[in-house]
């Protein structure tokens, strides 16, 4: 394994690991605020049990999110010090805002988790909500930094150095809002369908459980709404990419030849050497229409660019297809869910639906991973698009394969422990659940 590959692999693994917990940290507080609010309003014990039970899971996921986030803030320098030397002064601002937002989140979480009965109830509820709001803010700030890497702004690059640095213009670049909201919605989808799916499975085992039914309803409602809005957000992202990073769009779509009336490819496996995508279902003119708004728009193909600037096309394209496919399935499940709900609250306990919901548990997370693969791999070979190559940003220290395997082992151990803890948690919930 070369040092560059080890660095990329370690960063990618750390990000993929962190994002699981970040998604939970962004969306769960809102779900808990709903359950907590229902407890305050109706005083039905199941809502308090649900809130406190979810809180235990959230505390565990939150700490791993926090420490893996700390790891990433170190790894930015440990793995990519040359990038940080140039970028730190340009894009450090959203990171400092994220630090502040996370500080607020940590305080609010401490007050929420430990504040039962110690602070006024409405204030307690408010701090629970604050965890979520700061989580969303954190997410947007941190995505702003990645948006800058894809859409560099706020500086002039002269003789290998950045001058005329304007941190405000850097942070509020062209991509921050389309990417920021896409991530936030993705987090709600990932969490909503994961939590909903788990409660669906528990409901299959215990069909009379009002707690699991309420839990699943809250989770899937949030996930479904996010799933409906997400295609619109995704479309904005694709339009933005078509305009700013045409080579990334070409890779995402497996589009090799520059053409007007460019077809949309569904599925398919790109072959970089042959310069074409095989086995795809083609919808004529659709890519031109989606990317630029009219069928006669010209969409630049990969062949227009020198090969040394191509991202890995097959990975980017397939990841994109996976993401959209997952999104589509989630939207359909969400639609089914609302139809059942409209027919009557107890209709959502239909065994067929529950089984499908359980199967869809990981889809949101898979979509988040796939989406990040598209944007990160699709940006290669650049670490700062068209400015700095990833290969030029890596640390001079050799032997990076050792920290890579060490962190891999750590993440596997932590994931295994989390699964095991959740299993014990669910078993305990079976014992203490109230009747209504």
């Amino acid at each position, binding site marked *: 394994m070369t040092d560059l590959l080890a660095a990329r692999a370690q960063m990618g693994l750390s990000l993929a690991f962190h994002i699981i917990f970040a998604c939970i940290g962004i969306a769960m507080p809102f779900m808990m605020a709903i359950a907590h609010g229902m407890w305050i309003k109706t005083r039905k014990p199941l809502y308090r049990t649900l809130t406190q039970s979810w809180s*235990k899971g959230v*505390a*565990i996921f*939150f*700490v*791993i999110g*926090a*420490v*893996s986030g*700390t*790891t990433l*803030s*170190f790894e*930015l*320098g*440990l793995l990519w*010090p*040359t990038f*940080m*030397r*140039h*970028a*730190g*002064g340009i894009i*450090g*601002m959203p*990171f*400092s*805002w994220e*630090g*502040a937002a*996370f*500080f*607020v989140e*940590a*305080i*609010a979480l*401490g*007050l929420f*988790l*430990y*504040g039962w009965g*110690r*602070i006024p109830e409405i204030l307690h509820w408010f701090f629970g909500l604050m965890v979520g709001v700061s989580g969303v803010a954190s997410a947007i700030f941190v995505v702003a930094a990645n948006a800058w890497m894809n859409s560099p702004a706020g500086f002039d690059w002269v003789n290998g150095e950045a001058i005329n*640095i304007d*941190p405000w213009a850097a942070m509020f670049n062209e991509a921050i809002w389309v990417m920021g909201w896409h991530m936030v919605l993705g987090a709600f989808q990932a969490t909503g369908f994961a939590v909903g799916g788990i409660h669906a499975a528990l409901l299959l085992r215990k069909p009379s459980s009002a707690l699991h039914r309420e839990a699943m309803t809250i989770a899937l409602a949030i996930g479904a709404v996010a799933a409906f809005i997400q295609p619109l957000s995704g479309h904005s992202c694709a339009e933005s990419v078509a305009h700013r990073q045409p080579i990334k769009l070409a890779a995402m779509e497996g589009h090799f030849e520059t053409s007007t009336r460019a077809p949309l490819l569904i599925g398919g496996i790109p072959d970089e050497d042959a310069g074409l995508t095989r086995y795809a279902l083609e919808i004529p003119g659709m890519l031109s229409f989606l990317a630029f708004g009219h069928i006669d728009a010209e969409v630049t193909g990969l062949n227009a660019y020198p090969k040394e600037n191509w991202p890995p096309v097959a990975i980017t394209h397939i990841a994109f297809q996976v993401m959209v496919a997952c999104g589509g399935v989630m939207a359909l499940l969400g639609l089914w869910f609302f139809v059942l709900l409209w027919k009557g609250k107890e209709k959502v306990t239909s065994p067929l639906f529950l089984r499908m919901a359980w199967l869809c548990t990981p889809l949101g997370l898979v979509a988040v991973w796939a989406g990040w693969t598209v944007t990160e791999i699709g940006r290669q070979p650049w670490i700062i698009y068209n400015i700095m190559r990833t290969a030029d940003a890596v*640390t*001079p*220290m*050799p*032997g990076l394969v050792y*920290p890579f395997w*060490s962190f891999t082992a*750590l993440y596997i151990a*932590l994931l295994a*422990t989390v699964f095991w*803890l959740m299993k*014990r*948690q669910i*078993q305990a919930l079976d014992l203490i659940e109230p009747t209504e």
Partner: protein
Amino acid sequence: MIEFIAAIFAISLALYCVFGGADFGGGILELFKGATRRRCQVELITKAMGPVWEANHMWLIIAIVITFNGFPAAYSAISIIFHVPLTIMLFGIVLRGCAFTFRHYDVRRNLSQKVYSVIFAASSTITPFMMGVIAGSCLLGELHSIDGHSYWDVYIAPWCNLFCFAVGLFTCCIFAFLAAVFLVDEAGNDEELAVIFRQRALVANGLCVLSGAFVFLTAWLRGFQLIELAVSNYLVLVAFLIATVLLLLLWRTLLFKSKGGRLMAALQVVMILLGFLGMMFPNFIRGAEGAGFGAIDLYHSAAGPLTLYYLAWGLVVGLFIILPLLGYLLYVFKAKPTYTETDSSIGFRID
């Protein structure tokens, strides 16, 4: 502007050493539970840390963010030279947070509790040890350039020596001392527990002095003029003098069970940190120019004026939001001791 941001950086580090340091110290103390009230000691430490530890450790993130935003060249150089000890420290941070939280939230209380405790105590010791090692290494400043030197010379030798280990040990001692003093107050009216932690504090106090002397000894052994460096700067001299006075005052406070121990202990840690920063100023790492990294100090590695301006304002606004909230958190959970009369009656005395 640079000095203003550097001051916030120093304050951030100071708050981290006091609050985060106490958390680390709590974990270190778990290694020395002795024979009596073992489970109660652990419960007190857990309860004291529970609501506040994640917020306490944010001061480190603030310090890191100030470095990579305001002084990116320094952040870059530190990340290259100290890759190995920073990675070890990172493992410590990750394992510690996870072990602590898993121990508290795991619904089943069986053998897994023992595993969590071992990992928590070990990582609570390794992390501040490595922090001290890195700090000592920055002060020692014996770097080697990447060109023409072996992996060992560049990436290991600067920190893998007796002096740096001595600083690491000293760091563990002062954090353990800080935690013990804090826990005396947290024990509330549980007299037996208060006595236990008072004893720990006195022992830790002694160990601080011994390990501090060891730091100077190891410096002398390798020809590092630490004493000259310390006395050459008035600020450093004053800081260390105050620290010494506080040491004696604290000894008296602990022996005679008077008030104000926490504040004095916190002040003492801050004085030691200030003395260290005074010796370092304006460098992040001393002796870097000779090793081909360029001067790694505040002035040479600072980002552009607009960046510093936004960073300074961001810090002011951020702290304006954070400090009142943090104050409220500490008020809710620390205004009264962790163990009050009602708590003592809920069976915590069972060993």
